[in-house]
């Protein structure tokens, strides 16, 4: 069983500034991904997404479920996600391995979880609950983080590998996230990569960071950086071609800039197909 049925080619994140152009001109895009929450409930957003899905393989990427929160997932959020998944029936559904709420409040961000055995048990149950509610396997994405739980018992790759083993979920490997963690937190990038079960990786993300005060910030506001391309090429050479997404969420450039970035990824994927 493959973790996603997206084609192993390059795609782009479809964002609001490009909706009109894409629907009017139907440019050649390998596949597209959208943020699930922007299409929750109904109306014009949902109708447009159904049209998009009739022209392109579509991936639904959640940013708000926060299933790494050590309190129960929000039933209302999960129900809205289920309605969307049922309406679209996309080839891939993904979420982040992150948390965003406690019993008291939400912070609408992707916050890093404690990588311990105690949180593993709780978060595995949340992944189970989500997969059961949706009636399908989901992909979980590794995170860019700026702080760490001081009592971590394993690295993020080992934690994700355990989740795959316990829940049967797939993985979405964000190469940029891994790269910035290497710089910001001193994460051993190769150790995380080697812990990930390659067969479970159903999708890859690429994006550009910006430089903040003493930190690389995962803003998705730049072209993919050379170091990230290098790491991506290494990953593809090692695990083979995978569906690969160019994400751009801030200072969004013209569509052809995204297509040019996707073409770079496509060239690397093409090389791996030849080698195979």
């Amino acid at each position, binding site marked *: 069983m493959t973790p996603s049925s997206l084609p192993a080619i390059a795609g782009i994140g479809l964002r609001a500034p490009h909706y009109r152009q894409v629907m009017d001109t139907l440019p050649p895009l390998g596949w597209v991904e959208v943020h699930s929450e922007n299409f929750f409930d109904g109306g014009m957003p949902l109708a447009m997404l159904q049209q998009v899905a009739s022209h392109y393989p579509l991936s639904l990427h959640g940013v708000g479920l926060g299933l790494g929160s*050590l309190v129960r997932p929000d039933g209302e959020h999960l129900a809205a996600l289920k309605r969307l998944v049922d309406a679209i029936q996309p080839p891939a559904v993904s979420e982040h391995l992150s948390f965003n709420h406690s019993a*008291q409040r939400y*912070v609408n961000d992707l916050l890093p979880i404690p990588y311990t055995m105690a949180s593993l048990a709780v978060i595995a149950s949340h992944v189970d609950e989500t997969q059961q509610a949706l009636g399908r396997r989901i992909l979980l994405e590794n995170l860019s983080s700026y702080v760490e739980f001081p*009592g971590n018992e394993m690295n993020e790759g080992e934690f994700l590998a355990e989740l795959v083993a316990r829940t049967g979920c797939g993985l979405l490997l964000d190469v940029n996230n891994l790269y910035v963690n290497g710089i910001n937190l001193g994460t051993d990038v190769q150790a995380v990569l080697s812990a990930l079960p390659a067969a479970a990786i159903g999708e890859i993300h690429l994006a550009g960071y910006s430089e903040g005060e003493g930190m690389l910030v995962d803003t998705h506001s730049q072209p993919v950086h050379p170091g990230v391309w290098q790491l991506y090429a290494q990953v593809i050479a090692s695990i083979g071609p995978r569906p690969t997404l160019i994400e751009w969420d801030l200072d969004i450039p013209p569509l052809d800039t995204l297509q040019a970035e996707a073409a770079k990824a496509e060239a690397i994927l093409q090389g791996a197909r030849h080698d195979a």
Partner: protein
Amino acid sequence: MTPEARWQAELLELIAHTGQQPDAALGLTPAGLAVYRNNYRVGLIETLKMIYPVTGQIVGEEFMTGLAREYSKQHASYSGNLHRYGGSFGDFLQDFPPAKTLPYLADVARLEWAVHRSYYAIDQAPLAASALTEIQPEQFGQLRFAFCDSSRALSSPWPVVSIWQGHQPGQTLNVKLEAGGEQALVSRHAGKVRVQAETAGMAALLLALQDGQPLGEAAEQALSAQDDFDLQAGLARLFADGLLSHYQL
């Protein structure tokens, strides 16, 4: 609570409350925490600016940022879906002293929230007039209706519909504030949100039904709000415009 759950809860509080200093045991670097604090504040402010573009045009970019910042300090997010944040911004403006010089601002914001919710509202099959053929005529007066999530009526002592329409792209603003209040109906047609001003009679009918009052009482209020209100035509519009989702007897 496990140490892991406590760490999560404390990190959330520290991100939302910029003044608090983290306990060293949490292992948070100042630079790392600053990234999350900035994301949090900017994210909520940008969300409010997106939901309330007319309010933003009225007060200007800089003042809007200030209003949104203050609101975000007082109001936590309660959902992982940011499209649900900011529903009480109108109430906040009503009570916020620096906004008092623009007394209509709160109602403009309430109208914008109704527009925002209408745009994203779930798709529902509108109630057809034919669904009522089984009802005995003498029971009509006891009928209660639920509005579609995309439909909402609002009443204001200010000309909020004219103000809102005058700030739409390509429109020019021509509003006399002393002209008095307007009643707004927000509804959705083929995905597009429509905002229109209603007569006193139609508005009274809509507001009473929205409030859950039975049709008989709503009709009485409509007729007392406007002597020449055409009740027949008003009732027909509820169905023709697809404003209702179901009825209850």
